[in-house]
């Protein structure tokens, strides 16, 4: 498996774990009433921090086990795959932001808008990473 594919798997896994925990907490908190913006700040900080620590820790282990691959510069195929993933994610995030920034402000409170924006970023980023992984898996060449 290519080093950049492993890195995509790692980033995807850490992100899904962190935000699955965060959104589960949010769903449970919503049952007990409307959370405030400041009230969601600490759980969000813990989720984002936990994701960062997980990616940094596992990334360091991955880098140590594949030192030569890590030092290799991204070739044309790596760059094409990265651009393909980012372009698809751009359209996903664009659609999400149209919903969040244009439709939601006319009836939803600010904390819901912010969490919907966060969900849109997580979905777009997951789509980007999945496309990168599938491009490596399927031998996409651009």
């Amino acid at each position, binding site marked *: 498996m290519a080093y950049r594919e492993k890195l995509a798997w790692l980033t995807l896994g850490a992100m899904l774990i962190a935000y699955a925990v965060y959104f589960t907490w949010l769903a449970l908190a919503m049952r007990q009433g409307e959370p405030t913006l400041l009230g969601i700040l600490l759980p969000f900080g813990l989720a984002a921090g936990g994701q960062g620590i997980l990616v940094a820790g596992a990334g360091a282990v991955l880098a140590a086990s594949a030192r030569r691959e890590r030092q290799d510069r991204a070739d044309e195929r790596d760059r094409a795959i990265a*651009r393909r993933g980012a*372009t698809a994610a751009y359209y996903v995030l664009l659609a999400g932001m149209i919903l969040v*920034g244009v439709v939601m402000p006319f009836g939803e409170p600010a904390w819901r808008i912010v969490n919907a924006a966060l969900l849109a970023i997580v979905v777009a980023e997951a789509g980007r990473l999945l496309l990168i992984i599938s491009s490596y898996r399927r031998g996409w060449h651009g």
Partner: protein
Amino acid sequence: MSNIIYIECYRANMEKSLMAYREKVQWVSLATMLLVWGAYFARLAASLAAGRPIPGETLGGFAGAVVLLVVIQVAAIVAIAIHRPSEAEQPADPREREIERRAGSGAYAVLSLLVVAVMLATPLLTIVAPVALGRPSGTVAAMLVGNALLAALVLAAIVHSLWQILLFRRQS
């Protein structure tokens, strides 16, 4: 000498366009976005500076901007397609797809960063700004967050078009 004649014949017979169809579309997209969203955000900024942001008026202005943008862009793109129907019917070639991917990649980075910035600025937009404007209501707070996200969307779309134009120009 024969080369010069060849070039002249080529240009006269083929009527090759100096600008790619997709580049023209991006120019139209960029110009209309700057014009329409520039006017919309200037009006919004004026109402905020005067301390009287009215969510209903902002909604009307937004709906008008979207309709105007769609009408101008569709009319301009149809006009370009009628002028050069052969170019408009052709699917994107590998070079054009690569340009689109590069620009999309840049626009994604810009949009992600701006959305995160808006999220971090939400307490400022929802608590401090409505009080500073003298209208501490939830509707004004939601209007401010919505317009900040709309501005992020528009900026990313401008970067997307501008990036494509720069790449088309560089490779022309």
